[in-house]
């Protein structure tokens, strides 16, 4: 079939709002102005964000375009299993409440900017800090790439399908990223924070309007679920254990990602951080409603017909953009699509910044320690630019389905830093060699199980068939990792092996 695309009113709204977005990004540097040549000013907005802004920033940082596109896409293709995202985004914040305020306190006291700063200092090991930093950077890259894939899907549905589309999409994408990089370079996290609030308002308005309007116009969820009756519940005997282990593993993984740590450390104090983290499950309601779009679309015939233009394997990412396009008036569709589009840009900026911080502080500085504070910030700023464009290039070189697989693998990989970061916060006496051994075995096991589970072919599943059912591989690998770290440390401590000759590791902090 021929498609009409978004139409002029929608495109005008989209472009106008994008200009506002860019303006906020540039204007952000004047917002609670700080010395942007200091790294903690540039990348943590001077650690000054209150409950409200922290909530918006971390929300915008964690609930990404990829989440808004991939979760509904999963629900559309596989049904209830993909609703694991809901318990995941509830419980991850309980874990964050136990870990992030504590990390905030020690980071403020000792001037840490990254999780690796903390790990390197606590365990007196630059090697461990370096390994953890590289793990974070590697796991983050496909995550940034997936933001871009989500944004591409939005741009694609805006134009009539045909020969010129991919050129327009590429140009628009590159232009948006150039603007993003310029304001991130100049305004740092201050600019990103203002755009995050803007993004959140648009997304929430859109989701609420659509979730009310579409069921009213298309015979409600009854109609959608009558087309896909099997999607009403989870097939427990097959997926029960898989569902549970997947949300638990994902909840454990989220706050290990560099962008989550970066967002948390930008809070003004640990009390604000604790409160805004506690309230973040509310943001998940938007995700839950969007996830249901993956089922709702079955009731919308024109959207289904549009989706049939794509192969079964690749149509998932167009579900939400197509649903918006075919149910809303042009101008409102432009508004909503822009929300998802900048919903990819904002996290992409924070993710790249967080990777750049790791690269600067825990990779470059390990090999060249005499860098001035100004020089450090400059390296981090340029590294951010490089990371953004590597991710962008990545999406043009690597096929989309392959990026999604790398993201699956990224979750398994990032989980392997859990003992050093989360356990390290409470047990600084863990032995560094045991932590490194656990990390190495966890990584090797996780990757090997992924390969075996997918019969050494294309990675489509992160489940391993284990006894009574399917188990999330990340959770298996990190369990082995934790066991090695703990048992190894017990043996080392019993043998009197210390992490450093100088007994100066981090004391439990008592004051700000």
């Amino acid at each position, binding site marked *: 079939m021929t498609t009409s695309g978004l139409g002029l009113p929608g495109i005008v709204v989209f472009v106008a709002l994008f200009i506002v977005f860019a303006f906020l990004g540039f204007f952000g540097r004047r917002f609670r102005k700080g010395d942007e040549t200091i790294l903690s000013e540039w990348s943590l907005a001077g650690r000054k964000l209150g409950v409200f802004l922290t909530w918006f920033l971390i929300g915008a940082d964690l609930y990404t375009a990829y989440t808004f596109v991939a979760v509904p896409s999963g629900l559309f293709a596989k049904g209830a299993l993909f609703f694991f995202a809901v318990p995941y985004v509830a419980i991850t914040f309980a874990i964050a409440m136990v870990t992030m305020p504590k990390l905030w306190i020690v980071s403020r006291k000792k001037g840490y900017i990254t999780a690796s700063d903390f790990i390197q200092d606590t365990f007196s090991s630059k090697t461990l800090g370096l390994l953890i930093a590289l793990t974070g950077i590697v796991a983050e890259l496909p995550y940034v790439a997936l933001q871009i894939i989500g944004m591409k899907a939005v741009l694609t549905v805006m134009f009539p399908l045909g020969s010129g589309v991919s050129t327009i999409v590429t140009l628009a994408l590159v232009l948006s990223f150039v603007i993003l990089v310029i304001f991130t370079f100049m305004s740092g996290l201050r600019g990103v924070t203002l755009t995050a609030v803007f993004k959140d308002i648009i997304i929430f308005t859109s989701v609420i309007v659509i979730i009310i309007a579409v069921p009213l116009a298309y015979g409600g969820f009854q109609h959608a679920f009558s087309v896909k009756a099997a999607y009403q519940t989870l097939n427990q005997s097959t997926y029960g254990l898989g569902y549970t282990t997947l949300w638990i593993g994902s909840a454990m993984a989220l706050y290990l990602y560099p962008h989550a740590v970066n967002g948390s450390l930008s809070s003004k104090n640990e009390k604000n951080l604790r409160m805004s983290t506690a309230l973040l499950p509310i943001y998940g309601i938007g995700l839950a409603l969007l996830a249901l779009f993956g089922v709702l679309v079955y009731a919308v015939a024109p959207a289904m017909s549009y989706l049939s233009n794509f192969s079964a394997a690749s149509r998932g990412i167009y579900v939400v953009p197509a649903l918006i396009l075919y149910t809303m008036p042009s101008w409102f569709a432009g508004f909503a699509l822009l929300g998802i589009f900048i919903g990819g840009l904002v996290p992409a900026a924070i993710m790249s910044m967080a990777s750049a911080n790791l690269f600067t502080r825990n990779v470059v500085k390990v090999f060249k320690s005499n860098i001035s504070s100004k020089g450090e910030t400059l390296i981090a700023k340029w590294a951010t630019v490089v990371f953004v464009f590597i991710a962008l290039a990545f999406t043009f070189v690597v096929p989309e389905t392959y990026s999604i697989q790398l993201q699956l693998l990224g979750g398994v990989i990032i989980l392997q830093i859990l003992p050093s970061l989360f356990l390290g916060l409470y047990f600084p006496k863990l032995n560094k060699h045991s932590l490194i051994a656990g990390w190495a075995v966890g990584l090797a096991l996780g990757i090997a199980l992924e390969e075996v589970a997918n019969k050494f072919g294309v990675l489509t599943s992160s489940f391993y068939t284990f006894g009574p059912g399917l188990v999330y591989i990340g959770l298996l690998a990190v369990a082995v990792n934790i066991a090695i770290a703990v048992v190894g440390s017990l043996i080392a401590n019993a043998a009197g092996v210390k992490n450093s000759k100088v007994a100066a590791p981090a004391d439990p902090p008592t004051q*700000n």
Partner: protein
Amino acid sequence: MADNKVSDGKRVGVYVVSAILLVIPFIAYLLLPTYDRVSPELAGVSFFYWYQTLWLVISAVMFGVAAYLINHLGGEAS
């Protein structure tokens, strides 16, 4: 001892109550057989979906109360 109005015993109590508040949503989601069903439906959406979404709200309330307790009665060192 920045917050000297709060006794040690009370502080321990605050942390125990907060821990319980953080764990309750975890247990609720863990009990998959209790919510993996179709009825009662809400506006055509099966119980499986709306129940878990409702728990997002309950979780935020419980976590918020826990955060409030720790922030106001937990003392400075947390």
